[in-house]
């Protein structure tokens, strides 16, 4: 039986006070991530898969590759589709049902990072221009919610894509013929998302659940391998000053490099 997820007011105060003096309740520095554990290839049936544990937050991503029609305005490119499910077993606060605004926002933010950084070489996923292309499905499955789903999901999605293998094929008479062997999904960029929470006017990186419940608002900055920003999403009810936004961008530069080293190696 889980104790109610509502953070006791006394604890809320403590968290906020500590942050004012530059410390966090779990001992981390303001810009430190929790411990990250990454496993890939955990689901053999999927073309690619990964499981990320960010502190106690756990997200699994599976990729599936299908064949379908391209978008009419971009007839020579493969298609990317990202979906997220906040599965009820992940938190007493998740209800079963169709995707709600939180899971839709999560999917779209992760999607933006991959799409805008052109991480997948979609031109190489064309089978028959205008008619047949590969469709890459990225499905985010949240298994345990303990704060900062965006960063965990973005990491797991990238790892799953890097783990994705496509079958070799030949086009014969308009039909796809599978040949032996596999090739990795062609990737050229590695987007990493860094999420900041604003608490007592300070920015903290990778808020865990209780910090999320205390925070006024959050900002996610996604950067690609050359340190350029490819996606930003402010979420939650409060507001940021211009200085805070620019400060976050600077910190993100450092953090994304750190995290990318874990991913591209692992």
């Amino acid at each position, binding site marked *: 039986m889980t104790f109610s997820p509502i953070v006791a007011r006394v604890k809320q105060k403590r968290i906020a006070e500590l942050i004012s003096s530059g410390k966090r309740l779990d001992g981390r520095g303001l810009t430190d991530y929790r411990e990250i554990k990454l496993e890939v290839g955990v689901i053999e049936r999927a073309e690619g898969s990964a499981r990320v544990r960010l502190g106690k937050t756990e997200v699994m991503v599976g990729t599936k590759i299908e064949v379908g*029609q391209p*978008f*009419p*305005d*971009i007839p020579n490119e493969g298609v990317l*589709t990202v979906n997220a499910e906040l599965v009820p077993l992940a938190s007493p606060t998740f209800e079963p049902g169709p*995707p709600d*605004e939180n899971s*839709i*926002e999560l*999917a*779209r933010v992760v*999607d*933006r990072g991959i*799409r*805008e*950084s*052109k991480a997948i070489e979609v031109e190489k996923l064309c089978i028959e221009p205008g008619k047949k292309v590969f469709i890459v499905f990225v499905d985010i499955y949240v298994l345990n919610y303990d704060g900062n789903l965006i960063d965990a999901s973005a990491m797991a999605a990238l790892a799953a894509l890097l783990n994705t293998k496509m079958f070799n094929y030949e086009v014969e008479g308009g039909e796809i013929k599978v040949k032996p062997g596999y090739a990795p999904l062609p990737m050229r960029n590695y987007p990493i998302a860094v999420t900041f929470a604003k608490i007592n006017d300070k920015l903290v990186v990778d808020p865990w659940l209780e910090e999320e419940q205390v925070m006024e*608002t959050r*900002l996610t900055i996604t950067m*690609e391998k050359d*340190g*350029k*920003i*490819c*996606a*930003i*999403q*402010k*979420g*939650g*009810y*409060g*507001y*940021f*000053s*211009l200085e805070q*936004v*620019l400060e976050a*961008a*600077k910190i993100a*530069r450092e953090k994304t490099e750190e995290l990318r080293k874990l991913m591209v190696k692992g």
Partner: protein
Amino acid sequence: MPKRKTENKRLDRSQKKPEKLIDKNDVRIDGRKLDELRPVKIEVGVLGNADGSAYIEQGKNKILAAIYGPKEVHPRHLALPDRSLLRCRYHMAPFSVEERKSPAPSRREVELSKVIREALEPSVFVEYYPRTSVDIFIEVLQADGGTRCAGLTAASLALADAGIPMRDLVVACAAGKVEGRLVLDLTDVEDKGGEVDLPLALMPNLNGITLLQMDGDLTVDEFEKVVNLALDGCRRLYALQKETLKSKYVVKEAVEE
């Protein structure tokens, strides 16, 4: 590299794409300079039944915003004991875009409804009216890029028109990068054909950024420039917001005793 929506379109309606979006004199297709806003027209108090309303035209965008509330929450169990519940629905009419859009809420509309609500809430004194709801409706009648920003600007005026106490107005504007140049207030064609789109919402007196999104490709230095460009656009639109509220309540010259 052309940008695209994530919704699947089966019928090819792609218009012939313009050769260049900005010419060598830094003039855009619609004749604007890089940092020029589209022509804007705003009115408040346009709907009879809503408690507050506003209508905005920004370039080809035509957007209506309406407020109902504060009033009792339906369904009852959603009521919050210590504050008002803000709900927001951003929706595009089926005829608002080039290819008919299904009336069912798309994933984009769900996300935008959320970020718009989160952009307006910091400005409203929700603690004043516990157990009530304030419902915000934004209907896009015609769309041409930057609809979430124009919708936000109108919705904030509608809240003021409804007499709901606020800390500040909220005003929004997008900036971005098109063909290597930093531009203000992108149209749909510029958003699709350009490299960066960055919508931003601001509470001008408190200097608080309540909406910030971006997709594209920017160095950290360019990012700072684009944000400042968007803030500048916001401040110009804010002057118009105030004018609109003032002209609704024009103080008639009275014959003094």
